[in-house]
């Protein structure tokens, strides 16, 4: 127990991982495998696994394990592996601050407020859901307006039904999954409204979560009013024009007791911002280099805190890379402790080349590439900005096209991955850039 007479307790570790969800677990495991002697996860929830614990549906792990797992099963495999590798973790522990010189202050009920100095840090805090306020939907402020994830927790973990007559705004995957889940638990979902002319969710979920149950998906529709003083009594939905503005005269009142929001996820980057780490305004995640290292040397980021992913498999893969780079950094720092060399800036300067998004491409990660630090291949992840059919994804390295792949369809809901062999990056020099673009077949 902490006592007032003692100074704040400090400890030090090779690699500190902030967040024990899918990203943090994969990063911690990989850091241990890569030789980090001490790896500590700080997790604010009461158990490891993060949001996977409430995702009781299946569809996780097809890429990683070649089988379809539920969220808790997927998480359990990583938790078990982390325990085997003696990854340490503290639960119910909240990180309060992060400094660019790789020190965090955290708090929990057992240890009080304490400090951890780390050789390197992996940020794996995940993301949060955009709430009603961010959409500025007019109307009253009654009970019965939930983000899809909050409803998911109430249903799947706590065992309660948030409402019986439900309208869902936003066709993100969590919203679609909850449409099915609520229907199977006895609620009536009258419709899913999507402001865009296409869905933000995967086709499979539209078919198996909506069509299977006859739930209409209303594209180019939004909610323009919420009624009910104490509990939601109805919402008004309306069609929107090309500029996403409600079209007068198309309003329709839908009686309901619940409005579920599945309108986007935002990386939880307050700690990174506080530490002065550069943030990419498109992804809302940190700017990182090929090693997933942020603008603060030795601080890495991965998973949904870096950019919002579509599949957990890619979170795990990306985070394993971050964890291994973090271990490498920490071990090198430990060796060089007696003769410290100034840490090299992870981003700017000689030998670092920016990644640029050209036509149709947004949210590319990483932002910068140092060819000398790419081991076998460079992984580029990005999304497209609209629905495309029969287009090619091309990657140019300093003007030379090194990748060109045709796709029958590309949708913003899907994250795309392109791997570029390290040898292709060797010729980069001067003001060269790496460009990702969509081109005609």
């Amino acid at each position, binding site marked *: 127990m902490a006592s007032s007479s003692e100074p704040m307790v400090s400890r030090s570790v090779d690699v500190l991982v902030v967040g024990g969800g899918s990203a943090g677990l994969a990063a911690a495991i990989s850091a241990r495998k890569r030789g980090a002697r001490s790896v500590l996860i700080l997790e604010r929830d009461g158990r490891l696994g993060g949001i996977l614990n409430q995702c009781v549906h299946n569809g996780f792990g097809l890429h990683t394990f070649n089988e379809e797992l539920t969220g808790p099963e997927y998480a359990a495999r990583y938790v078990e592996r982390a325990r085997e590798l003696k990854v340490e973790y503290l639960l119910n522990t909240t990180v309060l601050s992060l400094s660019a010189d790789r020190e965090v202050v955290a708090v929990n009920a057992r240890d009080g407020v304490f400090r951890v100095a780390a050789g390197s840090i992996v940020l794996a805090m995940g993301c949060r859901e955009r709430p009603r306020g961010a959409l500025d939907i007019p109307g009253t402020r009654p009970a019965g307006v939930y983000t899809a994830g909050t409803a998911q*927790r109430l249903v799947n973990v706590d065992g309660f039904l948030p409402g019986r007559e439900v309208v869902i705004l936003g066709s993100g995957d969590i919203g679609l999954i909850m449409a099915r889940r609520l229907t199977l638990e006895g609620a009536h979902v009258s419709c899913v409204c999507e402001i865009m002319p296409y869905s933000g969710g995967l086709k499979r979920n539209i078919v198996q979560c909506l069509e299977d149950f006859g739930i209409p998906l209303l594209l180019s529709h939004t909610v323009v009013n919420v009624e009910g003083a104490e509990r939601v009594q109805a919402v008004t939905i309306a069609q929107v024009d090309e500029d996403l503005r409600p079209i007068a005269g198309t309003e329709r009142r839908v009686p309901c007791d619940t409005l579920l929001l599945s309108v986007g996820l935002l990386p939880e980057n307050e700690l990174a911002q506080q530490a002065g780490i550069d943030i990419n305004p498109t992804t809302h995640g940190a700017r990182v280099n090929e090693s997933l290292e942020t603008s603060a040397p030795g601080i890495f980021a991965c998973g949904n805190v870096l950019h919002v992913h579509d599949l957990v498999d890619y979170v795990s893969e990306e985070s394993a890379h971050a964890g291994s780079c973090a271990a490498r950094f920490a071990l090198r720092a430990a060796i060089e402790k007696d003769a410290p060399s100034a840490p090299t800036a992870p981003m700017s300067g000689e030998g670092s080349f920016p990644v640029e998004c050209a036509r149709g491409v947004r949210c590319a990660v990483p932002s910068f590439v140092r060819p000398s630090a790419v081991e076998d291949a460079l992984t580029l992840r990005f999304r497209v900005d609209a629905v495309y059919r029969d287009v090619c994804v091309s990657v140019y390295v300093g003007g030379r096209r090194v990748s060109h792949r045709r796709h029958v369809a590309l949708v913003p809901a899907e994250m795309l991955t392109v791997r570029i062999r390290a040898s292709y990056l060797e010729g980069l020099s001067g003001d060269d850039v790496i460009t990702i673009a969509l081109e005609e077949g």
Partner: protein
Amino acid sequence: MEDVIWDCVIVGAGASGCAAARELSRTDGRYLVLEAADDVGCGTSKANSAIVHAGFDAHPGTLMARLNVEGNALFPGLAQELDFAFMPVGSLVVCTCEDQRPALEALLERGRSNGVPGLRVVEKDELRRMEPNVSDAATCALWAPTAGICDPFGLVIALFENARQNGVGFSFGSRVESVEREGGLWLVHAGGGVVRSRCVVNAAGVYADQIHNMVSPHRMVIVPRRGEYELLDTSAGSHVRHTVFTLPTKMGKGVLVTPTVHGNLLVGPTADDVDDREGTQTTAAGLGAVRCRSALGVRDIPFREVIASFSGLRAHRPEHDFAIGELPEAPGFVDCAGIESPGLTACPAIGRMVASEVLRALARMGRARGPRPDFQPRRRGYVNLNCISPEEWNELIARDPSYGNIVCRCCLVSEGQIREACRRGARSVDAVKRRTGATMGRCQGGFCCPRIMQIISQEHPDIPFAMVTKKGGASRYLAGNTKEVAPHG
């Protein structure tokens, strides 16, 4: 309770009612507050600009002008005594074209005759240094150093807790249905029961006309005037340093832009007269107007950082002045009505004025009240983890480990604070929010709401998890258990 004869029953537990209750609690009478909602400060007091106005706006000679300046002067001491957040940030009334300068000078003069200290006009260069994001059109501004911002929930809760601590009774869920005179006493029917009292204070906010008209042939009219606001994330909280107004228009003070004591940025309000006394919905037109009109005084407000919008109703009287005092036609019945802006600022002075009216009436009735010998003027607020040192926090955790368990990550609120709020009377999630700040952050309760519901149900054995409400009444979060109803279809 029905056998008791109260010295005074106060109708309404908003800022005015609670301030009156706290002032009366200095004396040894028997006082009761009746409140329709499940908590204090649920009407006009909860949705406003949270500004402590300097007092240059109201017309000299009005009650509004006098009580504003008096209230403003009392605020810093009260905030210290009752431990709620108050920050004397000062305010600027920005003049956006040279033609308006005479109006600004007139405001300065009005302020001086109201007795507002420290007023002066600042010119363009100084203004830009004081407030870098002031609009490019700004030519000069009226600087009022005595203006400030406060936590309006914190203020009302502090007044309530201190009054309660000094013996005032509070009865929630007690909407007043009628008030009648019988045998020299007032019979107040509320929430299915009746209480008898020598005096009644009518501090019923937007319902004050209805209460007044129950006892007086001189009709009072209250027009609910709706004001809509946009609240921005703390990341936008330092966009302005002071409360920035633009020159007032006929419909009110224009749209102000201000930091809040919680570190957010608040923009609003509009001013629309409505019929519905519960009409606190926002509208697309109103929120559009907030955004549009705010640009007049402040540039580049990052509206993409909006985390919530809300609206509140001001209890506007067409006469546009506070109506405070005992009614000659209804002995012992004291109005405290038409308390619109700057009512929050004025409430410490309103409380004193109402209390002196009540005590005078009681004395006349032969029930003169003396000072309460054990009056405790100080009240302990809720700890703010954002403002304490690690050592202080560790002391707290050593006493009660639940203070180390963070529940609301956006606003840094621990399980310990939420349990304490419940023990001090909070029974709904919004009541916890107003005491601790939990759910007020950027995720708006997405992560912590189920956890807060759990704590409320643990602390109040009469509230099972499934029955926890957002704000009392029928505002339940849950429709029932899963597995109870067959799959739909």
